[in-house]
């Protein structure tokens, strides 16, 4: 009798929450939604799309390089392809992909209902999408950016690159930087304030640590590249002399500003992915992560050190020996926190009861590739060796081992791991294992030989090479490996398509994992949790098993056993460190303003590209009006009554 009444009350509560939170169907809802799960999945899909584009560019280059003296591509087309390949992978795939994971997972992992600023979240997605389109706008004209992803001056200056190629690059990166910065600010404030009561900082999943660290770094690093790009554009179009030598400019200023941004950025591309491994790998070892605290500290300290190593990209530029020695030493030291995390993962595997599933294979593969990429990185931290190796294929091998090893492998593993949560269906494990082995073999066949071609002196970024160098067969192996790797990515897509239609139903917690996102349904309801959870430990779903203390987390169903907050679109705000509830946060409803604001920015960027002042001015006025509408104060009560656990 009572149970029946309780169930009806629970169903009523769920319906109330659904009415408050659900996005309207149709085009308006599609453009206006601010649901972090929808935005997260959009991020993942868009970034994956860019991964495919960047991948196809790479395959075309590998065809050109398969044998000596081929003429598949002209030198200029090759320049554009390697530049867009690098730009796409670094800016449009690697970070947005991780933002997708964090956007989707953070509120679920933290036991909240959304990010701190849901509209800002939508804005960061739309700006990312439009900036990505903007960066590709000159591609069909044969005028894509063509000075490499780090676009050194004077190569990128007007005298040597007269088309609109580099203007698109400079303005596109400034545009994209807005997305990165607002997204980062959103992650930081979400972490500080939007958690379940009891989710204190010592209980955060490592993915949260990774993304938090990356976000703080982005906030402090992205302005450097935006400034450098603004200077480049001014040098090119308004005759300034920042980099241009005859007027007293300094080409090295570009390199300093770019790498002050670029090196922290590289860590921003890997730390959240390492977080994916730290959280998901232990699930398949049937134990908790070894050395949680050390891994969390190593994550943060990697980034702190990461701000002091940028000159190792500039060893060959003729800087004073003292400066080279300092940055070389810092680059050696940064191996220590990475090694700590590495040993933590190995110890977790060593002491665990393994379940060799597809995600596990990807994470184990990641560890091996990280070691290889880490060792070649350690080698190039030495100034003497770097002078021999810089600008050769050895560096290409190193950076691909690091970026594919530490980003792509954890990402594909993570997609296998969280796909059931996102879709309600499990990816086929057999096909998944085929995916892994195809990608792993293809990857090593493609990139390991580049260490050797690099040591033999093959320079990077040159569209072909003479037969006399004797590197033809190694390049052929690389090309075959690249295509095998691409087949692996294709298998993954086939698996996704197949499993979405006919995959095995997942249930709430198919992997029997310990963190909060597995407590809700798959896929989760739009409001995430009917009752805001009360967290008592680092592993809320394993508490009975671990039995580390008396306290138990309370993850209520929709019954009235805690904080429901069904009066309006609301979530709870907590104190930054101890996560004690201290404020009710009104969450904004769906809105097209973020979309319109992004369209305005796109128009503004085009205005700058065409140097059409009237278009820039008109767009700026529209943006001001939109922002005023966005920020208009709304009336609300001063206080509200909530139920809090004792």
């Amino acid at each position, binding site marked *: 009798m009572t149970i029946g009444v309780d169930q009806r009350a629970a169903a009523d509560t769920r319906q109330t929450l659904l009415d408050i939170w659900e996005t309207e169907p149709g085009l308006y809802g599609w453009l206006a939604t601010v649901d972090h799960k929808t935005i997260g999945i959009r991020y993942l899909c868009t970034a994956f799309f860019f991964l495919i584009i960047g991948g196809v560019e790479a395959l075309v280059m590998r065809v050109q390089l398969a044998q000596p003296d081929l003429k598949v591509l002209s030198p200029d087309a090759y320049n554009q392809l390697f530049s867009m390949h690098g730009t796409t992978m670094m800016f449009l795939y690697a970070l947005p992909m991780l933002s997708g994971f964090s956007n989707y997972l953070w509120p679920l992992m933290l036991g909240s209902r959304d990010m*701190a*600023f849901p509209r*800002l979240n939508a804005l960061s997605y739309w700006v990312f999408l439009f900036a990505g389109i903007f960066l590709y706008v000159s591609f069909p004209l044969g005028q894509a950016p063509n000075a490499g992803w780090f676009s050194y001056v004077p190569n990128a200056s007007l005298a040597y690159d007269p088309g609109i190629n580099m203007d698109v690059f400079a303005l596109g990166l400034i545009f994209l930087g807005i997305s990165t*910065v607002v997204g980062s*600010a959103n992650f*930081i*404030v979400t972490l*500080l*304030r*939007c958690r379940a009561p009891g989710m204190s900082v010592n209980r955060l999943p490592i993915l949260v640590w990774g993304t938090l660290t990356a976000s703080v770094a982005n*906030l*402090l690093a*992205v*302005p*450097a590249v*935006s*400034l450098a790009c*603004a*200077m480049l554009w*001014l040098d090119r179009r*308004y*005759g*300034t*002399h*920042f980099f241009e030598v005859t*007027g*007293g*400019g*300094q080409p090295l*200023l570009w390199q*300093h*500003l770019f790498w*002050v941004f670029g090196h922290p950025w590289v860590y921003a591309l890997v730390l959240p992915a390492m977080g994916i491994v730290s959280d998901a790998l232990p699930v398949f070892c049937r134990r908790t992560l070894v050395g949680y605290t050390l891994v969390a500290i190593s994550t943060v300290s990697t980034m702190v050190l990461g701000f002091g190593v940028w000159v190792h990209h500039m060893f060959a530029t003729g800087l004073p020996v003292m400066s080279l020695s300092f940055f070389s030493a810092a680059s050696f030291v940064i191996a220590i926190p990475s090694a700590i995390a590495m040993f933590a993962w190995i110890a977790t595997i060593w002491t665990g009861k393994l379940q060799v599933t597809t995600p596990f294979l990807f994470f184990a593969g990641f560890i091996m590739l990280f070691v290889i990429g880490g060792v070649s990185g350690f080698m190039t931290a030495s100034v003497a060796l770097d002078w021999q190796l810089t600008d050769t294929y050895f560096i290409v091998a190193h950076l691909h081992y690091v970026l594919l090893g530490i980003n792509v492998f954890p990402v594909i593993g993570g997609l296998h791991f969280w796909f059931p949560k996102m879709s309600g269906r499990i990816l086929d494990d057999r096909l998944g294992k085929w995916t892994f082995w195809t990608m792993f073999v293809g990857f090593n066949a493609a990139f390991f030989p580049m260490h050797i071609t690099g040591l033999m002196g093959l320079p990077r970024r040159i569209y072909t090479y003479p037969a006399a160098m004797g590197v033809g067969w190694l390049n052929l192996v690389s090309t075959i490996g690249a295509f095998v790797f691409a087949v692996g990515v294709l298998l993954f897509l086939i698996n996704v398509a197949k499993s979405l239609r006919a995959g095995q139903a997942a249930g709430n917690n198919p992997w029997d994992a310990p963190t909060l996102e597995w407590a809700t349904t798959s896929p989760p309801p739009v409001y995430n949790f009917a009752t805001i959870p009360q967290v008592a430990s680092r592993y809320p779903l394993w508490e009975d098993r671990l039995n580390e203390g008396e306290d138990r987390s*309370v993850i209520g169903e929709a019954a*009235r*056993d*805690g904080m429901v907050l069904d009066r309006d679109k609301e979530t709870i*705000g907590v104190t930054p460190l101890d996560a004690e*509830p*201290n*404020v*009710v*946060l*009104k969450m904004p409803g769906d809105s097209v303003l973020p979309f319109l604001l992004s369209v305005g920015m796109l128009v503004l960027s085009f205005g700058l590209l065409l140097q059409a002042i009237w278009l820039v001015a008109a767009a700026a006025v529209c943006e*001001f009006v939109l922002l*005023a509408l966005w*920020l*208009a*104060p709304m*009336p*609300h009560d*001063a*206080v*509200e*009554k*909530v*139920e*809090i*656990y*004792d």
Partner: protein
Amino acid sequence: MTDLTQEQFLPVGGTGTVSTAWWGMVCLIATEAILFVYLIFSYIYLGSQQSGPWPPNGPPSLRLVVPNTVILLASSVVVAWGQRQFRRTGNTPLLALALAGTIVLGATFIAMQVVEWSGKGIALSTNSYSSAFFLLTGVHMAHVAVGVLILAMLLIWTIMGRFRGVHHEHIALGALYWHFVDAVWLVVFITAYLVPQFS
């Protein structure tokens, strides 16, 4: 389970460090502040790599810029005063007056800075000094302009009666941004105007 819970009143939205908006503004200020660090780094780096004097035509004149600095600092005091009055007594006419005064002072700063620029006899594209100087002071001026627009919106909302009872956050954050713009000016002023007098 109800016996485990107690009812409690919590603020909605909150003010100061309790509100999420305050933290958002701190993030914005942090990223803007570091932008100025990179601007000043670029200015100093270009100067340090010159063979000739920096600035090439001798130190910039302080005739207009010193009073202008006083004007900008005064504007911070005015907006802080209006905010304080409003917080204590809810007096919107005084707040509106203070906002209008701050806007006038901010606009005066921009106007005087434009006069100062046009009397310098160098343009953006003259040399690396002029490029760095105008970019540094120009980016700052853009921030003053945005600050004036923010204050104008606050003034409009005040006059429309949108700030009653609990809505202090918009005003507090607008004022915080304005203080930031003023504080940055001091650093820009010292870097681009004061230090060259002694070098």
